Structure formats: C-alpha cells, structure tokens
C-alpha cells in the first residue's frame, strides 16, 4: 500500500476547499475516472465536515488528520481527530423518505465508499474513520 500523502488542517470550514483539491488530485493520480473522483471529493468533504461539526462541535482549534493510500486496486482515506470519543451509535443517516435539512452526510459516505470503519483512537482522546473505495478508471454511464 502506497501512502500518497498526509494532510493536517485545523477544524475550520475554510480549510475544506484544501481537502477537496487534494482528494480530487489524489484520486486522479490513483487512476480514478472523473465521476468517481468527484464522488470521493464529496465523501471525504462530508467526513471532515462531520468531524468539525459533531466531534469538535465547532471548536476550530482542533486538528484533523487525513491520510490517503493507494494499493493499486483501491484508494483508502484515513481520518483522525483528537476530540472526545464520540457516540458511535448515533452516527447514522436519516431516513431518506424524510425530507428535512441535514442527515445526508453519512448517507453520501455510505453510498460512495465500499467500506467504512469508525472507532475510538487507542489510549486517549480521539476518533478514526477509515474509508475504502475500489478504483475504477472508466466513467460509468
């Protein structure tokens, strides 16, 4: 598994645009087609937003770590925060039939990624989210 990069940003909404350009370029570098790259951008952006809003609860001094790996077959995104361990049971999408603002981020992530693992960091404060998606080079119809 090749490590493409590690990015560390403060938990500030301004920095999401940095995450997006980096995920887009990494996905292209890993051989993802444009449509998939855009979906990965959306999913990782949502995951970072959730950390900002729910793990750090708006505290902009927190740090978010994003690592991107490529094993040739799939691209992996590992996120870490150093907020208080979050309630893992509460992390779930709203029912989509229900039209109301919010509750879409986790749905986007689940739709786009092939696998997600979430948990508390060992020995201390913090949480991780590991996401994996198979690389496909051709645009779907």
């Amino acid at each position, binding site marked *: 598994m090749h490590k493409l990069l590690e990015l560390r940003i403060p938990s500030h909404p301004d920095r999401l*645009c940095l995450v997006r350009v980096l995920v887009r370029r990494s996905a292209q570098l890993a051989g993802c087609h444009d449509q998939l790259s855009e979906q990965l951008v959306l999913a990782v952006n949502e995951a970072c937003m959730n950390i900002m*809003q729910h793990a750090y609860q708006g505290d902009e001094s927190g740090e978010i770590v994003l690592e991107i790996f490529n094993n040739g077959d799939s691209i992996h995104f590992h996120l870490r925060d150093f907020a208080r361990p979050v309630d893992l049971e509460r992390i779930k999408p709203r029912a989509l039939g229900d039209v109301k*603002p919010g509750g879409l981020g986790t749905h986007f992530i689940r739709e786009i990624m092939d696998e997600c693992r979430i948990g508390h960091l060992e020995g201390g404060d913090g949480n991780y989210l590991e996401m994996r998606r198979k690389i496909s080079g051709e645009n779907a119809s």
Partner: protein
Amino acid sequence: MSYNQRQHEGVSIIELSGEIDLSQSPIARQQILGVIESGQDLLVDMAAVSYIDSSGVASLVEGYQAARKNQRQFALVAVSNSAMSVLSLARLDQVFPIYASVDAYFQQDD
C-alpha cells in the same frame, strides 16, 4: 461561492455560483430564506455551481419547506451536472421542482 439576485416577471431569481460548502452555505441559506420570507416566489439558478455539499443541499431543503409553508413557488433551474449528481445521491431530484432553464419555468406556467 458568489451570488446574484434579480427579478423576472414578479419572481425572484438567485443565481448561485462556485462552491457551496459549509463555509458558504449560511450565506446561501440567508439569501434563499430572505426571498421566501418576503413573500416572493423563488427560482434558484444553479448553472454555475461547481460543487455543493450536504450543508448546501440543506439550505435548499429549508427553502423548499419554507416556500410550502408560505404557499410560495420554489424551484431549481439549470442545475449543473456536478450539483445534479449530489441531488440524485440525496434522492432530492425527485422532490424539488427542477427546470432546464428560467424560460422553461415560465413556459410551463403559460
């Protein structure tokens, strides 16, 4: 993100452009709700939206709901491919009234 607001045949049109993410969606939300609460019908032109995340989508949902409550029209027009794929993923392409263009909206009214 940037936005531009204009009037056309008694309807308010907000043109959003660029990236509507968590740092920008509060501004979009404020514009959208401002129009609805002032009692006007609203078209949101999304031709130049290059990116929209769930917080941007939430602002549209709020506008849609406020319009229903106030018995006003709310529709999206000229939605960019990028925004449309996010709306589809949210299954909201079946919920929002969506028109190909501002003209298409006014034609259906005739």
